């Protein structure tokens, strides 16, 4: 079982160059759980994730891991506790799957040392979990989008961190692969207790797979908690400006939102809504 950590953002303000995107966020990542950050485009969810993974330095406030500010923790030591799969990592030309996954071992290796037995085991385990062992000697360029994403996650797993961040791990994937990736991440969380924090675009998949939701709007934390408590039509309206009704997901029992547009709405059920949008 992976160790529990207290991982918090305190009054965090962050952004790029002159533009502040995160305006004073306080939050604590629930240990050994799956958390998902949701919000409209440009609400700062990726920025917040990157700030917490020390890719962006907060302009004020701080990120703390077990009470210690993360920029005070030596880089490699932090990399053994906190791993992150960036949104668009770069594939070195012609590299094989096992070599790429092996690079996740970097924080565990010394300056001169080669691969230890532990390194091989960690890489094998990560590749087994992500089901890419058979692709070991393939070149990354030969893989499909879904396979490629599994390889990247395997690299992050080889890092053997207690906490794993993923920035939109399912974007650009077919729905089949989205579900596959989220299932594998859930396996990981259930089997090893890995704390997972990710940014997802799909609200309903977020509600289904998350233990905890962070809802962001304009760089601020609007609501957080279990999906069944947090996901209401009022919240969705507030975050996305979208009318919807929330039903129970017939498969998982989690909340599932059904958007209400201007067209294709039954007159007898939502005549009020429709009437509104026609006049406006």
């Amino acid at each position, binding site marked *: 079982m992976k160790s529990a950590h207290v991982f918090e953002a305190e009054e965090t303000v962050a952004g790029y160059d002159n533009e502040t995107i995160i305006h004073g966020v306080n939050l604590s990542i629930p240990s050994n759980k799956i958390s998902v950050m949701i919000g409209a485009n440009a609400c700062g969810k990726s920025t917040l994730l990157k700030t917490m993974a020390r890719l962006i330095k907060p302009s004020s406030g701080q990120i703390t891991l077990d009470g210690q500010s993360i920029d005070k923790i030596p880089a490699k030591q932090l990399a053994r506790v906190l791993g992150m799969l*960036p949104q668009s*990592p770069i594939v*070195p*030309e012609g590299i094989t799957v096992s070599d790429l996954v092996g690079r996740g071992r970097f924080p565990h290796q010394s300056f001169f040392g080669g691969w230890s037995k532990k390194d091989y085991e960690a890489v094998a385990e990560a590749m087994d979990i992500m089901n890419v062992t058979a692709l070991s000697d393939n070149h990354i360029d030969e893989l499909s989008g879904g396979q490629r994403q599994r390889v990247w996650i395997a690299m992050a797993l080889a890092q053997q961190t207690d906490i794993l961040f993923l920035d939109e791990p399912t974007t650009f994937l077919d729905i089949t692969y989205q579900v596959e990736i989220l299932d594998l991440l859930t396996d990981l969380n259930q089997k090893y207790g890995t704390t997972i924090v990710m940014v997802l675009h799909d609200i309903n998949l977020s509600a289904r797979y998350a233990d905890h939701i962070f809802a962001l709007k304009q760089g601020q934390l609007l609501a957080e908690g279990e999906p069944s408590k947090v996901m209401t039509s009022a919240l969705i309206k507030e975050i996305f400006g979208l009318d919807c009704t929330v039903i129970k997901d017939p498969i998982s029992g989690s909340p599932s939102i059904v958007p209400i547009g201007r067209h294709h709405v039954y007159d007898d059920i939502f005549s009020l809504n429709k009437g509104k949008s026609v006049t406006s």
Partner: protein
Amino acid sequence: MNQSVTYIVKGRRQRRYRWILVTGLLLALACLLSCGMLLLGSTMYPAQDVFHVLMGEDISGVSFAVETIRLPRMLAGLFAGFAFGISGHTFQTMLRNPLASPDVIGITAGSSAAAVFCILILHASGTVVSIASVISGLITVLLIYIFSKGKTFSIGRLILVGIGMQAMLNALVSYLLLVGAQQDIPSALRWLNGSLNGSQMDELPPLMITVLFVAPIVIALGKHVSILELGEEAATTLGLHTDRTRMMLIVGAVSLLALATATTGPIAFVAFLSGPIAKRLVGVGLSNAIPAGLVGVNLVLGADLIGQFAFEVRYPVGVITGILGAPYLIFLLTRMNRKGNVS
């Protein structure tokens, strides 16, 4: 899982064998070419005489040819080739683009201009030339970086700015040659294209010392380079200090390059060709710095032997490597054009 471990070990071992095999063959070829450099010449001396001279004996005629002409020429080619190869490979890998070679983006030209200025105008030598060319190379890097910065970093812009810098600095070298070496065609050729002609033993120590001390550091950073290759974000989350690593690599690679340039002139395209050739031979996955350096050695020594003996006229080494490198440059540029960007 044990089965998976075995599977992964097997794949890695295969790649490692290939690395060892290729590196071994490159080393053997380099030894062969080095011997060729010592044995071949306008007068052929018996191999045992050459060997005895190298061991310190004094044989009239042979001693002069070997110790004063052939040995310095061979050593200059050997060390400069290794330095060019590693330096080019480092820049190309760090910037993830074969066009981002120091002899394409003007860094070599920067070092060259400083060396020409110090030697022909100031009549300086040794340490002064070395230091000036290293500093000038680093300033060139800085200028390219500043000019290509823009709002977001773009490797395409960096390469185009570098090509511009190259043209400007080459014009400066030509000007300095016109002012300083009007009568001296051999030295002019050396500074335009690179040459081993007239290499002297007492010019070599700065280059040799730099290669012996700096090359191992750059080679040892191979693992860090492979992490840097994954992009800024992935590298940072893996616990790499990206800025610090890049700084060390740039200073190391520029030192090697500048000292080689100050000794032999900017031997055309050796830095540019070595990395891609090594990569083709070894494959990807393990650090290719050593094979790239050895490819550099073989290119310089091989091209020099061809230049000396294959034609009626003797050509300096840079003319031959230039003929080899130009088609590859054109190939890369057409590929970049087809893809619509420099990548």
